[in-house]
């Protein structure tokens, strides 16, 4: 009986060790033959390649380690923008799928069926090579809201010039901390005395008033710089100044968010439908009005169903952002597993670092979500 349990485990262990041993042995032999040495020392060496778009200062004289950071930040930028936009679209479409209006319902369903069934890579290609290429040249671009321009070379919009930005950020942090305290206090008040504080209104007020005060007393000031059209040569124009978003980033964010929004929409729909009809009826029968039913009964239960699969979709979006390599947006894969790998030839080190980065990202988010799920799970009696 005991043997029956130990034997298959030993066999598994043996196979795993054998495979890993085989791989390591071969890797050592291969590297010896090709004269490559294993090590992560190259990270501090000068990279001597340039990156088109980066959030931090970077030039060819910086190290590979910094190039890695540039790639990672670009990946995170795409992911965060994509997650925000796909959530907005996804929630709207998900709710629209449950609309009593036949036309809205059908349109939303077609949106989901359409964008979900076309490979993401094809969509990215479409936006980058076909749709955004149809935009006007900088000199022909028309202004949107007076100062923003959508051109074939990207999106140009005024940038904000902050004075004493730190004070402003501190005030926002202070406001968030204050809101947390207000919420705790309101909860205590509700549980002990049954009093309801208008938490949402107070929170919004704090969030606006505190940063606003810094403008009046903290010396914070904000100006803006508009993009200006500059003539480089006879037929070559270019926008300078302001904030510029390259077309790679634009098409990547559009494609990722439209694609992922279909999955988010399905999660939202399933979540709302997953709350039993009886809950709604019971809430109505004890005299709650429509808004209270939605806020106090439906949403808390629906969110429990919606959040775990939606987080999965956010993770997928983050992983899918690696498709950036296909349209030369300098994300982690392109900068590090592409250019840096070509230059150093350190295949094992670079691919393993890249994979480990994504793995850490995914695992930490899923650990957080598991913890969160356990925390909000309904404790059944």
């Amino acid at each position, binding site marked *: 009986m005991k043997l029956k*349990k130990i034997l*298959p*485990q*030993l066999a*598994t*262990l043996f196979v*795993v060790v054998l495979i890993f041993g*085989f*791989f390591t042995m*071969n*890797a050592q*032999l*291969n*590297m010896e*033959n090709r004269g490559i040495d294993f090590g992560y020392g190259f990270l501090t060496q000068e990279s001597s390649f340039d990156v088109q778009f980066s959030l931090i200062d970077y030039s060819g004289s910086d190290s590979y380690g910094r190039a890695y950071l540039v790639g990672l930040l670009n990946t995170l930028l795409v992911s965060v923008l994509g997650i925000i936009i796909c959530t907005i679209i996804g929630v709207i479409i998900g709710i629209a799928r449950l*609309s*009593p*209006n*036949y*036309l*809205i319902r059908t*349109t939303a369903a077609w949106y989901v*069926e*359409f964008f*979900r*069934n*076309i*490979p*993401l*890579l*094809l*969509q990215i*290609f*479409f936006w980058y*090579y*076909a749709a955004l*290429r*149809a935009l006007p040249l900088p000199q022909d671009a028309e202004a949107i809201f007076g100062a923003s321009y959508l051109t074939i070379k990207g999106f140009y919009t005024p940038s904000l010039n902050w004075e004493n930005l730190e004070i402003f950020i501190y005030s926002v942090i202070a406001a968030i901390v204050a809101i947390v305290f207000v919420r705790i206090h309101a909860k205590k008040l509700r549980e002990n005395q049954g009093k309801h504080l208008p938490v949402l209104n107070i929170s919004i007020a704090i969030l606006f008033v505190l940063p606003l005060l810094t403008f009046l007393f903290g010396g914070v000031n904000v100006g803006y710089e508009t993009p200006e059209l500059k003539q480089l040569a006879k037929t070559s124009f270019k926008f300078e100044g302001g904030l510029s978003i390259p077309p790679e980033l634009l098409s990547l964010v559009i494609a990722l968010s439209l694609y992922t929004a279909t999955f988010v929409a399905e999660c939202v729909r399933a979540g709302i439908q997953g709350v039993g009809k009886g809950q709604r009826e019971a809430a109505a029968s004890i005299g709650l009005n429509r808004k209270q039913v939605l806020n106090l009964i439906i949403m808390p239960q629906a969110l429990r169903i919606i959040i775990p699969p939606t987080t999965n979709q956010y993770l997928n979006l983050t*992983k*899918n952002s*690696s*498709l950036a*390599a*296909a349209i030369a947006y300098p994300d982690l*894969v392109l900068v590090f*597993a592409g250019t840096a*790998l070509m230059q150093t030839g350190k*295949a*094992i080190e670079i*691919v*393993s670092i*890249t*994979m480990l980065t*994504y*793995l850490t*990202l*995914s*695992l930490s988010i899923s650990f957080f979500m598991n913890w969160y799920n356990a925390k909000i799970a309904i404790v059944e009696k």
Partner: protein
Amino acid sequence: MSTLNLLNPSKDNLQSNLYLGSFLVGISLLDVFLNSFLKLNITSFLPSIISLLLPFLLGMFGLHLMRIEFSGIKNLDRLNKNINTNNFNAALTLLIIFLIIKAIPPVMSWMILDANISGDTKDACTGSGACWTYIKVWFKRFMYGMYPNEQIWRVNLAFIFLVVLAFVGFITPQKYRNLLTLYYVVIYPIIAFILIYYLISGGEFGLEWVETGAWGGLSLTFIVSFFSLIFCFPLGMALALGRRTELPIIKYVSVGFIEFWRGVPLITVLFMSSVMFPMFLPEDFFMDKLVRVIIAISLFEAAYVAEVIRGGLQALPRGQYDAAKSLGMGYWKMHIFVILPQALKLVIPGMANTFLALVKDTPLIFVVGLAELAGMLQMAKTNPKWLGYAMEGYVFAAIIFWIICYAMSKYSYNLELKYKTDR
């Protein structure tokens, strides 16, 4: 008859409200229609902003007049219930209808009316619409990649064989039905492999050898998805069972495997298979690029399949396990005859989603230099003779992929209904 109250339509003036309302809605639709199809602006005498908003305002007022509850007219009630419940819904309804009317002419003229399909060169495309000539000329490349033209019959023959063999299940007599699982899981993949190895790859029986680098287009999409699908399913099943056992080593090996592959993007896995994997193999050992890709995708998707199947296993009530054990079944007997048939039935939608994801992921093989449909499009797009037709290519590929994926999801839905049993 009481006085006509336009602000508060009621059943008293049903007819007059209804006629006035439908007249207004009709006018507003007519205006948009003429504007969109015939480029006529019948309200051009008005200031531009009013001219623009007029159809919307007319439609809103018309729908408002028509919103009469319990009118007793069946169609009106149905209309009100479905698209005209309140002002907000009426506004959305109108906007959607206007959008559809506005979108039809440009799309139609681009795709059909002003499009060209005749001729064999770029010069044939004179219209302002799509240039389907481009698709026609490149069609063989989009389907078969760089596979030599005179050998294409081999690919066709192999695929026809495979499709015919796939239909064996429908004509098998009742007597041999129980052998079908064996046929589809073991024999069919072997036949498929033999067909592809000898017929498409060639090199023997007087057939010319065609290297895998020349394969491509849609046929490669099928080959990669087919084999990855076949390999990832049993592997995923084994991993799911492994994750559920009480034997710690097997359990943690499975968990580690699943979490690793689920945590990394496919593109890095393919990078690994192309630049890192050769380092792990003996120097004189050569493994084809295509084989490496299929292995990589199978391992990757197996992790997702495992999680889907685990969901099914967990959803089965404990009683099923207990009942099977009480009949004296061992681990394997219990799983093969009691647990897995029920669990797999439960996870049909999840499996279909995973397989769809697999098909949609195949274009990523461009990173290792294999060009299936999307990859061929990139190649054709940069051909100096055919510059500027990216849009046509993407629309074409999107339609093909959409049809494949939509058909798969509908099929899985039917399968789900077919095997649905009430408990």
